[in-house]
Each structure stands twice: as structure tokens, then as C-alpha cells.
């Protein structure tokens, strides 16, 4: 007789047009780390939302310690000691860390807050589990990793012993991921049970005890992690074999497509420059990757290249023309496509239908426009074509409102739209963020196909694995400067990590040596 702390039995949940969970059963043992694996839109988040009381299941039952419970809202979940950290954190930016932790569970005396007691408890928890936070810092000032620790402390503060983590590692740096895993193991040792949602097979293999797999809303099975392999897990998740290595022909760099000289971009956060006089080239038919820990100026560099932010000094040449001060539309027409970092802010008009989003970069072209009118039929058929080519799943196809789609499918829609334009330069920022292995595989293939067709690709990624497998040349950024240039064949992840952390740095001559090795003269 197994000691199940939570059992979700035969859960079915339907939304208009889509069956998100279809007879799903999930059993969580006491003190285990249980991974929930599935493709984008497989119904993982829906299932967890049912457990946390955000959705009511159409049928099925939930048991806590063998007794049937009804979880009508997150307060009920809390009373059952179930806590959840959402993919997008639910923190009050202008509150301090301590205030955020006690918010909703404040200790009071005569109606006045008693923060001293709360502070003692928080500090004790923080020390016990190695969750280092500064209780007086404002949430808006702390790193994403620390925000996540605040969210975890919130659960602990409420004495939750069933912890749900929705894609906890998506926003973390490799070092932070290691720390998080250590913390998770600590919880399990204390008898807390952890359910965590992820796409990343490595993490499942590293930290979980068991893994349940969902595919297209259906329950596929649960396996003991120690008896399984990455290959088997991905087969369960995708329904076919997935290759983890990226096959690509050697790079044949052509003409210089993008040339950046001494580019400086002011920071929005502080008075310093976010990008400090950076120079590099990207050639036709090569994939250049900007690597670095988040917040070292890569994002600002990309925004300046694509025209979303203004550069304060330096020059950007695109196909021999100076585009430093060109408007965005002009850059796009000259042949630049951009998979943006923030898909909600820039990538999609969330309240537009999918079909209108698919033509967001092209609606004014003669193919889709005549005499000022939009050819909606053409827009529709174009959207249908992209949807089937890039396997974008949604409830109502081209008519789906983008906001109603799952994050991974939103990403696939953007990637499809930008890749299909077959431009001279593709600026791709985290193109596979939040995607499952199957989708990552196909997007990597598409990016390499674009490269082989002569597109210059500037890739920015925080995933070192992606950086190593996809790029032809790696530029490491640290504090707004390029501190090293590498050939992925001749560098190790550990070595890159040193440069990313600012512990090592190539001098200029070394950098040009590295460039010379690749047969490329760097300006």
C-alpha cells in the first residue's frame, strides 16, 4: 500500500473547443519529487490549476491522504497545505520581500501588523533551506532567481507541504538551477512532496523520483526515473523518437550582412550604459550566438539592432547601408526579421486572432493588401499554411485569439511567422523558450535550414546547450561588453561559464586570433 499524499483520479477538464485534460490520473507520494512532463499545450498547467483550485474539473476526484476533497479556490488549496509557484510570479513589485511573503497571511495584534515575528520565521526558513533573500529589498529590485526564492518562501511560510512548481527553471541561470535542485532535494528529505512541471529532460533525470507524462490532454503513464532514459521519456511525451543532437553541415560564411561598430546603448535601469561600444560582424550563412548571463546587455543590444531602442553611439550597417537611425519598418523591409525576447510585449497583439498575428509583419504587402483593404481570405489561408507547417495548436485555428493560446504555441506562431519571411538576417532571441523537445528539434532544424539558404542568424540564448549545438561562432557578453569570441567546436561549457561570469576575459588580440581561426576578420 503506497503512501499517497495527493491523488487526482480520472480528471477531465474541457474548455470551449479543446479537451485540456482527458481522464488524467496523477498520484503523488509523500516525500517524493514528481515531475510532470508533456508537450506545449499537453494540459500540464491545466491539471495543476485544477489541483490548486483555479479551475473546477468537469469530472474526476481529488484525494488528500486518501480522503476526497473539493478544492474550490486557492484558499481551499492553502488550507490543505498545497502551494504553487506560477510560471509568471505573482508578486507585488513595489512591496518588500518580507511584505510579499506575509501578504494574505499576516500575523496581527490588535489589528496591527506584527512583522517582527514574521521576520523571525522567514529568516529561520530561509536559513534552514538555504533560500537566501534580503527581506527588506523591494521585489522590483531583485533578480528573477531571488524572486523565485521569495515565491518558495511564501509557500513555506504558509506551512505548505505539497509544493507545485510550474516550469521553475525556465527563467534561471545554470548556477541558479543547480541551487534550486539542491533546495528541492532538501524539501523531499523533510517529507515535503514536490510536483514540478518542466520540458527539460535533463532536470527530470537529475532531480525527480518519478515522472508522469501527458500527451494532448491524455495520461500516458508514470515511470520511475531511475529505470528510464531521456530517449524513452521523450518518446512517451512526443509519441515518436526525438534526436537530441543537431545535425548540421559545416558553416560557409558569405558576405558580411550585419556589421556593428562601437555600438553603445543606454540602460533603462541605471545611468550606466547597458551596451558599451560593442563591435562585431555577422555573415550570410552563419549562426552567431550571443551568450551570457541574463542582464549583461544582450537584450539591449538586440533591441538597438532591431530599432526598438535607440543607440546613443556607434554604427549599425546592414547589407552595407547605415541603419543606425532607421525606423523599424525600414529595417524589416530591408530584410531583417526578429523573434523577440518578450512574446507578450512585442511578439503578438494578444487580442488579435491568430491569423491577424500571422500577417503582422506582412499585412501591407501586395499579397495581403489591395487599395488599402486587407485581403482577409489570403490572410486566412496564409495563417493556415503556417499553422500546419509549424504545428501551432489552438482551440479555433486561425480564429483563436492569441491570448487564449498556450505559451509554447504562441512561441511557435512567432517563430513560424519570422522564419517564413526568409530574410537576409534573422535576429532570434531565445527562440525555443518554453518549448518542448519535439518543437525545439523542429525549430533548430528550421534555423539551420535558413542558415544553409544564406540567412545570417544572430541568436541570443541563455541555454548553454542550445548555444553549443546551434552556433557557428559564440560571442560572450559580460557587463555590456564582448569579452570573448569562440568556436563552439573548441570550447567547453565550463570555459564559457568562466567568461560569462566575468572570471576570464580575452584581450583584443586574442579575440581577433579567435576570429582569424574561424577565417573571419573582425572589425
Amino acid at each position, binding site marked *: 500500500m503506497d503512501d499517497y499524499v495527493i491523488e487526482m483520479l480520472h480528471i477531465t477538464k*474541457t474548455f*470551449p*473547443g*479543446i*479537451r485540456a485534460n*482527458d481522464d488524467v490520473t496523477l498520484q503523488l507520494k509523500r516525500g517524493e519529487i514528481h515531475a510532470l512532463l508533456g508537450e506545449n499545450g499537453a494540459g500540464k498547467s491545466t491539471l495543476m490549476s485544477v489541483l490548486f483550485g483555479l479551475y473546477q474539473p468537469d469530472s474526476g476526484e481529488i484525494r488528500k491522504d486518501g480522503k476526497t476533497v473539493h478544492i474550490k479556490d486557492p484558499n481551499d488549496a492553502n488550507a490543505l497545505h498545497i502551494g504553487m509557484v506560477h510560471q509568471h510570479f505573482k508578486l507585488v513589485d513595489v512591496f518588500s520581500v518580507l511584505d510579499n511573503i506575509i501578504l494574505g497571511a499576516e500575523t496581527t495584534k490588535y489589528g496591527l501588523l506584527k512583522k517582527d515575528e514574521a521576520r523571525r520565521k522567514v529568516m529561520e526558513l530561509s536559513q534552514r533551506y538555504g533560500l537566501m533573500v534580503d527581506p527588506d529589498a523591494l521585489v522590483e529590485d531583485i533578480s528573477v532567481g531571488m524572486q523565485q526564492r521569495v515565491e518558495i518562501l511564501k509557500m513555506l511560510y504558509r506551512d505548505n507541504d505539497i509544493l507545485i512548481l510550474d516550469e521553475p527553471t525556465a527563467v534561471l541561470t545554470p548556477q541558479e538551477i543547480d541551487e534550486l535542485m539542491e533546495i528541492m532535494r532538501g524539501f523531499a528529505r523533510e517529507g515535503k512532496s514536490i510536483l514540478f512541471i518542466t520540458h527539460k529532460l535533463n532536470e527530470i533525470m537529475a532531480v525527480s523520483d518519478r515522472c508522469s507524462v501527458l500527451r*494532448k*490532454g491524455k495520461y500516458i503513464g508514470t515511470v520511475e526515473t531511475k529505470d528510464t532514459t531521456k530517449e524513452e521519456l521523450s518518446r512517451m511525451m512526443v509519441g515518436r523518437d526525438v534526436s537530441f543532437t543537431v545535425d548540421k553541415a559545416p558553416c560557409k560564411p558569405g558576405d558580411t550582412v550585419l556589421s556593428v561598430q562601437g555600438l553603445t546603448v543606454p540602460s533603462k535601469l541605471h545611468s550606466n550604459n547597458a551596451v558599451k561600444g560593442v563591435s562585431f560582424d555577422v555573415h550570410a550563412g552563419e549562426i552567431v550566438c550571443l551568450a551570457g548571463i541574463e542582464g549583461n546587455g544582450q537584450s539591449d543590444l538586440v533591441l538597438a539592432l*532591431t530599432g*526598438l531602442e535607440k543607440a546613443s553611439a556607434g554604427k549599425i550597417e546592414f547589407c552595407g547601408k547605415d541603419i543606425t537611425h532607421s*525606423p*523599424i*519598418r*525600414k*529595417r*524589416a*523591409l530591408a530584410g531583417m526579421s*526578429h523573434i*523577440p525576447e518578450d512574446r507578450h*510585449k*512585442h*511578439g*503578438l*497583439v*494578444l*487580442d*488579435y486572432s491568430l491569423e*491577424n498575428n500571422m500577417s*503582422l*509583419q506582412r*499585412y*501591407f504587402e501586395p499579397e495581403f*493588401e489591395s487599395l*488599402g*483593404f*486587407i485581403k*482577409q481570405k489570403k490572410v486566412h489561408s496564409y495563417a493556415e499554411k503556417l499553422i500546419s507547417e509549424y504545428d501551432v*495548436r489552438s*482551440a*479555433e*485555428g486561425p*480564429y483563436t485569439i492569441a491570448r487564449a493560446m498556450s505559451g509554447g504555441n504562441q512561441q511557435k506562431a512567432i517563430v513560424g511567422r519570422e522564419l517564413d519571411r526568409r530574410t537576409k538576417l534573422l535576429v532570434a532571441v531565445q527562440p525555443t523558450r518554453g518549448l518542448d523537445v519535439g518543437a525545439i528539434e523542429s525549430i533548430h532544424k528550421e534555423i539551420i535550414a535558413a542558415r544553409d539558404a544564406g540567412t545570417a542568424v544572430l541568436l541570443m540564448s541563455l541555454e548553454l546547450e542550445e548555444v553549443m549545438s546551434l552556433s557557428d561562432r559564440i560571442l560572450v557578453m559580460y557587463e555590456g561588453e564582448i569579452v570573448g569570441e569562440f568556436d563552439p567546436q573548441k570550447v567547453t561549457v565550463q570555459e564559457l561559464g568562466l567568461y560569462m561570469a566575468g572570471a576570464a576575459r580575452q584581450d583584443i588580440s586574442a579575440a581577433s586570433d579567435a576570429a582569424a581561426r574561424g577565417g573571419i576578420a573582425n572589425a
Partner: protein
Amino acid sequence: MLNKRRFIQGLFTLVSAIICVLIGLALGFIILVVFSWSSYSSKGVPYTVGQVFSTAWEQGFKRILLGGFYNLGWKIPTRSLLLRSEICRIAPLLMCGLSVGFAFKTGLFNIGAAGQYTLGAYGALMCALILKLPWWACLLASVLFGAVWGAIPGFFKAYFNINEVITSIMFNWIGLYGVNTLMYGNGKSVMYNANESKVWKLVNKNASAIIPDMKGDGSTLFNKVFTNPSTIAVFIAIAVAIVLYVVLNKTVFGYELKACGYSKTAAKYAGINEKRNIILAMAIAGALAGLGAGLFYLTGTEQWNPQENTALPAMGFDGISVALLASSNPIGTIFSAIFKAHIATGGPKMEKTLFPSEIADVISGTIIYLCAFMLLFKNKLAARVFRRSRKPEGEIKK
């Protein structure tokens, strides 16, 4: 099949709007019953419940429902001035509703319709009384004046990120007192008729500036109804609504404007000039409100009173409620404007000793309030219908 789903959802919006209207009317009737009951009980004579209800109906509610058809009963309208002045009010209401609704669609809150309306009135009347231009030229002037008055807050929003609500409110008052001063001109303005202490009547100064009507010889029903002050203005306004619908939903321009409205950052990413679009959207909203004033003052029913008009024209704010009731849909706005004009005409016809005419405003106020719940009604309806139509072993659609 999917198109059908969208059609049904559109239908839900309509049905829930009608539910709002019905609840608002019901509440209005309840208030009338309360008034009627309190007046009976204060008289100190015996009365029956039937009397209370019949008074509330006969002398109150029925008249609101009849609107411009008061005097006519439920009969086919003859040459009724009341009905014609109701129709005359539809055009400006519709235009102000379109102005607010259009701005909503592009992500802006145009609370400045009142000021743009004022400027539009000035533009129309100045061209009519000083420049002696024909009606269509005066209408163009009202469009132009309103557009400029809308564009200025748009400019501040686009280039200095100053909230358009704040600037529009200030420009409402600047516009009102500016126009009053210009029209009055210390009593010496060409536009000002000192004897009536109002702006000159168009009939006396420049009859060509009056918008044409059907030259009512009373031969046909159409002729009877569309005689001054009811002119072709209402047809112009409806045509504008249809054009606006097409622009918003079928054109590249509308696509860009709505993209800016939904997400400024995504529009910028797509290379849309969002600053230009904000100014243009506000200018168009202003032009619509300005045209509304032109369509009203060029019928010659009412004269501007520069010394007493010290409150912003209510038309601008009624536009907000008209737009809300129609969920900013230009075609829907046509119907909500007709409805609003109808009950506003009926309100003052209630028995004044018993019922305050503001009950009509209570009704429309309730309806607007309920509009906020419209989404709720809509979702409930959708949940009911779709749950029933769901296939039991439905597969996930790709």
C-alpha cells in the same frame, strides 16, 4: 463551422445588450411605481394597487417608451414635431458615440468629445453666419475644427506620454470658454444676436446653411417624418457609421489602428508608426464629434447661447454611454443612439408633478452600469450553450 461559432458569439453580445436594456427599463418602471405610490399615500385618500400601477404606466412609463411618438399613441406617425426633433437628436448622439467608440477601439479614452463637439459647433456656425457658406462647407468646417481639437491631446499623448484623459478634459473647458468668448465678442460679434441673447438663427442670416430636408409637402410618410428639424443629417451619420465599420474591420489602416490600441509595443515591433497613429486616431475621433455638432446646429433648431452655456454639452458625455452600450461597434452604435434619443425625448413628457424627467437618465444610467456586466452575461450564455453542444467523446482540435 468555426465561423458559426463566431456568429453565435456576436449574437450573444447582442442578446446581452438587449438584456441590459430590459433590466434598465424594468428598474425605471419600479422607480416610477415607487414615485406614484408615494404620491398616492401622501394625498391621504384611499387608493388601490391597480391605481398606483396604472398611474406609473399611463402618465410615466408609457410616455418614455413612446418617446417621439407621444401625442401619436401607437399609431403611424403623422407630422409630429416631437418625433422630428427626436430624429434630429439621433445624428449628434450617434456621431459622439462613434467618436468615443472609435477611440476605444484604438486604445484611447476620448472624454474630450464634448470639447470637440463645441469646437465643431463653432466651426459650423462661424462658416454659416460670418462666411455665409452653404451647409456642406459648414459641415466640413465642423469636421476640421473637431479634428484639430482632438489631435492636440493626441499629440501630447504620442510625444510626451501625457494621458489623453487629462488633456482632453482641460481642452473641453478651454474649448467651451474659448468658443463662448468668440461667439459673444462682448456682444459685438457678428454671430451674436443681442435681442435674443443667443447666436443668430440660421433662417434669418443664411438659410443655405441649413441641412436640406425632404421639403415636407406631407405627400408621403417619409416626407412627413423627414421635415425640418429632422433632415438628411441622420442619414449622413448612419453612412459615417457604416464607413467607420468598414475602415476598422477591413482596411490596413484599421488593422494598424487596432493593433496600436491592443498593444502599443507589439505595434511598434511590427514597424507601425504608433505615434502617428495615436494622433490620427484622436483627430478622427475629434472630427466625428465635431461633425456631430455640425449635424445638430445646422438644422437650425437650437441656437448657441454663449452667455448661459457654461456647462459642457451633454452630447459629448452621452456619446460615452452610447458607445459603451454598443461595445464600441459602429453598427451597434446606430441602434444605441436611436434608443438613447428615444427615451431622452420621452422623459420630459412624463407627468411633471409626479415624476422627475431625470428618470430617463436613471434608466440609461442603469443600462450603462449593466454594460459592465455584459461580459458576464455573455460568458454565462456561452458556457450554457457550448456545454450542451459539446460532443461527449470530442477529440482535441488541432
